[in-house]
Structures are given as structure tokens and as C-alpha cells.
């Protein structure tokens, strides 16, 4: 008969080191950080709404603020992060919305592709209607 072994399980502490364990966790954190820029830009636009309500001078001042170097840099970061959010979000749509036709499921690429196509069309429509080109 074997002798009795005493147990003493060791619990490893969870630190923030997990973020660096694999590139996928860094990509996840990047995706999550997009919220700061999307939220920040939206708050900036709320301030713009206030200027719009004030009148033409306030609005012009707002547009002038948008031209500052700080604003341009912020916009470039915001655009990059917003795009990253869009790409990651749309790529995940097939996971959340599986479509079964007959026996088989519609391939992920088709579902995501349809979303990307709609995104492209919508983007162009907005740019056109806004008079950007």
C-alpha cells in the first residue's frame, strides 16, 4: 500500500503579465483601447454640437480648433483605432450570427464579406452626401 501524500496545491498569482504572453492578447488590448478614441472623439463632437447651437461664430471657432496640430494627431490616432475596431468587429459577426442554409452553414468569409461590403457602400454614401468629393 502506498504511503499517504499530503496535498498543498500552489496557486499562481494572476498579474497583468498575461497581456504579453502572446501577440493575440496585445491585439485584444489594442482593440479594447479603441474605446478611448471612439469615446473621446464622440465627446469632442458633443462639444461641437454645443458650438453649433451657439451660432456661426462659435461653429467657426470649433472648426478652427479642429485644425490645430493636437486635433490632427488625435484624429489620425482616432481614425486608426476606429478602423481597427471596425475590422475586428465585422470579422467577428459570423461567430455571433451563424446562418444555416439546408444542412450547411454559410461560410464565415461570406457573412463577414457581406458586412464589409455594406460598410464600404455606407462609407462611400456618407462621403458623397457630405460633399467630401
Amino acid at each position: 500500500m502506498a504511503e499517504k501524500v499530503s496535498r498543498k496545491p500552489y496557486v499562481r498569482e494572476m498579474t497583468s503579465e498575461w497581456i504579453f504572453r502572446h501577440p493575440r492578447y496585445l491585439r485584444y488590448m489594442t482593440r479594447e483601447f479603441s474605446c478611448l478614441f471612439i469615446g473621446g472623439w464622440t465627446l469632442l463632437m458633443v462639444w461641437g454640437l454645443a458650438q453649433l447651437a451657439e451660432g456661426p461664430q462659435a461653429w467657426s471657432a470649433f472648426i478652427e480648433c479642429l485644425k490645430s496640430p493636437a486635433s490632427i494627431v488625435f484624429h489620425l490616432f482616432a481614425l486608426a483605432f476606429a478602423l481597427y475596431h471596425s475590422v475586428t468587429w465585422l470579422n467577428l459577426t459570423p461567430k455571433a450570427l451563424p446562418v444555416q442554409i439546408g444542412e450547411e452553414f454559410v461560410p464565415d468569409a461570406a457573412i463577414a464579406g457581406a458586412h464589409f461590403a455594406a460598410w464600404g457602400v455606407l462609407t462611400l454614401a456618407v462621403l458623397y452626401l457630405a460633399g467630401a468629393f
Partner: protein
Amino acid sequence: MGERTIELEVLRYNPETDSEPHFQRYSVTCREEWVVLDALNHIKETIDPTLSYRWSCHMAVCGSCGMMINKEPKLACKAFIRNYEGVIRVEPLAHFPIERDLVTVIDDFMDKLKRVRPYIIPKQVKAVADGEYLQTPAELNKFKQYSMCINCMLCYAACPEYGLIPKYVGPAAIALAHRYNQDSRDGGREQRQEEIAATEGAWECSFVGACSEVCPEHVDPAGAIQQVKIKSTVDWYTEHLMPWLKK
């Protein structure tokens, strides 16, 4: 060619003598086609018989040999030596307490598996004499993918939310609940919702997606969890905004 001498750095922990784990290095001459499990078996057989680890089938179907290999959750029988350079670091599966060496305490997972009622709760009870349940290929495909889970727990090791929130029911258990919810023979979704639609259920998931990436059977627990979230949300709003609708 044919052989390669590699260095394996393995986390050791003896609960009777150690206060904390430490690494031990072994030099192993491996054949070209070896997996990490072969190297571990070689160590145990010829160098250090005290090394403890779980393994069984050696062909990625039993789910026993999950461990962290260079900080990535993998089945040791599916981690080919030829894909690694330099020192290979082998540690027990992350986010589980260490029992001894590479053996983890998996009681938490076993408990969660039970809680999600991973068995058919029939819509209509049928006596065996009344014959089989009939199911079309389309109905089978609705859940087949989620039935492929081998309970290897790599997904729990990959999931940072499970590491941060030990109460989280976790990817495999939720995917398994989803497997039964999707089965046309089953009528137990309401009971399983008590577990997987609770705060510690699907709601702790932040869709990192690591679980699906490391899953050796391509179960895609992340997808299952998102579908649970959406269904649970629709249920909640229906229930609260239109309570007159009978379920």
C-alpha cells in the same frame, strides 16, 4: 539528421517539500518526429522518474496532456519538437492550481461541467420501447461542432477572464451547454440558463477569442458564448418589455 538534442525547462513542484515551484532543466536527445510528450516520457523513463504529468492517448483525443509550452496552452502530444527552437519551457496549464509538477487541480472545471447539465433533458420523455429520436443532418449540424470538445481545458488556460475571475464558468462548459441547447432532442435550455446566463456565465466573457484559437478540436467556444449572449439578451428584453408573451 533524425536526432536533435534539446533543452527542456520544466516547472517542478513537490507539495511535500517545496514552498514554491521552480524550474528544472533537462537535456534530451529527441528523434525528429517527437512531440513534447515523447521528450517528457524519455525524461521520466531514463533521467528523472519523479517527474509527474498527465497523459494517455498520445493522439490528441483524450484531452489529458494539456500544458503551457513556451507560454502557450497546447496538448503535449500535439506539440512537435521540430517547431521549437532553443529552450522549450514546459509549465502546468495556466489558471489552475498546481497539484504536483505538471499536474493541475481540475476540480473547478469538473464542478462547472456538472453545473451546466451536459446531457439531454428531453423535450418529451420517450420510453425506450417507443424507439429512437429522429434527427436530420441539418439538426445534427446545429450542435455537432460543439460536441467535439475533449475537455482538455486549453481554453481555460488561454482565457484571461478565467484567470482574472475564477468564478467564471468558462469556455468549454458554456460551449457544452450550448451543444445541448442546440440539440433538437433537448428541452433543458431554461435550466441551463440559470448557470450560463448568470453573471458568472457568458457575461464574464469579453470575446478575447483566445479559447477558440487554442482549441485542438475547433469547437469554437467563443462563437458559442456570443450566441448565448445574444439569445440571453433577446430573452431578457422580451421578458421585461413584453411580459405578456408566453415563453
